[in-house]
């Protein structure tokens, strides 16, 4: 047990949407095996990755999450047969959309984690937390961060120069 948790200046908030059959159980297994992973993630348990609505991710970002993590059963293992296939398509497109909005899609992580993959769960969560920590606070809705108008014009000017 026990790597020591270091509290950083910036601790990202990570919202995880997981299916209850695979990933939630995998995370439980990590607990039963007394593994250790970063505490930044809060999980919302859903019946199936097919229930993960892009709307939830939008809401999570809107509500100040710095990263969103989505996970379900591996293809072929969905408890409901096909839910994760729909989830995959939704996310393929949703990520591209976020990207087009200029939002770093590194902030959304999608992973297949089975009920047995406790180690994978901890690894993926740790890596993702680290990645988001490096990316920093999600700036999407902050009024203060930049004056986007000025910034954009400046960039345009620089380009034309």
């Amino acid at each position, binding site marked *: 047990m026990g790597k020591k948790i270091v509290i950083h200046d910036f601790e990202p908030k990570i919202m995880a949407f997981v299916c209850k059959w695979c990933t939630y159980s995998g995370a439980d297994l990590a607990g039963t095996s007394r593994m250790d992973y970063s505490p930044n993630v809060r999980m919302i348990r859903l019946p199936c990755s097919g229930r993960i609505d892009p709307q939830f991710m939008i809401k999570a970002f809107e*509500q100040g999450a710095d990263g969103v993590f989505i996970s379900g059963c591996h293809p072929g293992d969905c408890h409901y047969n096909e839910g994760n296939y729909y989830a995959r398509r939704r996310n393929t497109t949703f990520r591209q959309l976020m990207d087009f909005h200029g939002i770093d899609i590194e902030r959304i992580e999608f992973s297949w984690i089975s009920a047995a993959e406790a180690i994978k769960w901890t690894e993926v969560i740790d890596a993702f937390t680290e990645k988001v920590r490096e990316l920093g606070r999600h700036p999407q809705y902050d009024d203060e961060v930049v004056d986007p108008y000025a910034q*954009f*014009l400046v960039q345009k000017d620089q380009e034309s120069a």
Partner: protein
Amino acid sequence: MKTATLNKSDIGKCIDLLLQADLRVIAPRLQPQVDEDGPDALEVLTFTEVKSGEGHQVGKGLLPLNGVKEFLFAKHEPLFAYEKRGKKIEIIPVHHEYPQTVIIGVRPCDAASIASLESVFSDANAGFEDPFFTERRSRTTFITYSCTAPDSSCFCTSVELSPDSAKGSDLHLTEIGDGRLHVEVITKAGEAVAKQLQELLKGEGDQATREKAGAEVTEKLTRIRDSAPIMDWLMDTANFDDEMWQRLGEKCIGCGACTFVCPTCHCFDIVDENKGSKGYRVKIWDSCQFDHFTLHASGHNPRDWQYKRYRNRFNCKFKIYPEKFETPGCVGCGRCIRACPVNLDITEYMAEVAHKATNPNAIKAE
């Protein structure tokens, strides 16, 4: 009334001076486009806060897409905050320190629209004063700019205004040729601003040329209606069920664009923005063109059909405002005509009504 002249090329300097005086300055500016020369790109001119005198579009182009209303009647206005603690709730007033603001390059129609909004939000209306509007209003100075090139949608002269009207203005600018502007100081607030611009203002204005210039531009307007018979016709409740409403209005798709761009449309909604146990109550823009705007909890909707919603809009401008506030609810800016995706034209309604009002028999025979 004091007058002066100003070089047109000095407007940028004016803005800088105002900024130096720690004022927030809002001026028309062009917004970036993905592909400025592409076939899809239109010039997007809006009133925006500016940080320097560069790049402003005062006096250029026609009307900015947004009116000035969003600077007085904000798109999103927190009314107060609240926090829940167990069974107790605390209301925390939000501290609004509205910056002293100057809006420069306001067109006469937009300036006139402020008066309409004021009549709704001031305590003259049922004794309730919207403090947010009045507070913002009291801290805002309008520098208006007479129109030089109205477009085919403009019809301010039909609503008792003109391209050089100074109604609602604090400081009024009119082009008088040779790159010079005739400056009129109209109010105290205008005078205060004029003081900041002292170094750029020169001598006396040229009233005669200004009036002549104004008259010339007025000539260019194409849509001209007399609004008086319109109002009379609308007063007759029987006409509320006239066939023209459906005929003209059935193509309206209820997009609400017309109301959002309209400088005098004032409908709003009040909602709570909640987060855990804290939140804000906010006032946000709404529109009478939306179907759920008047929908009752029982499912009954007084304006169940889109044409009825447009009828309400038209009545609001030409009946309700005049009746309640004694000012027309429309300033003839033509924004709704330009914005409407299905080319539903308020002046067509005006024409139709005027026609019916003046030839009542002809219509009956039809």
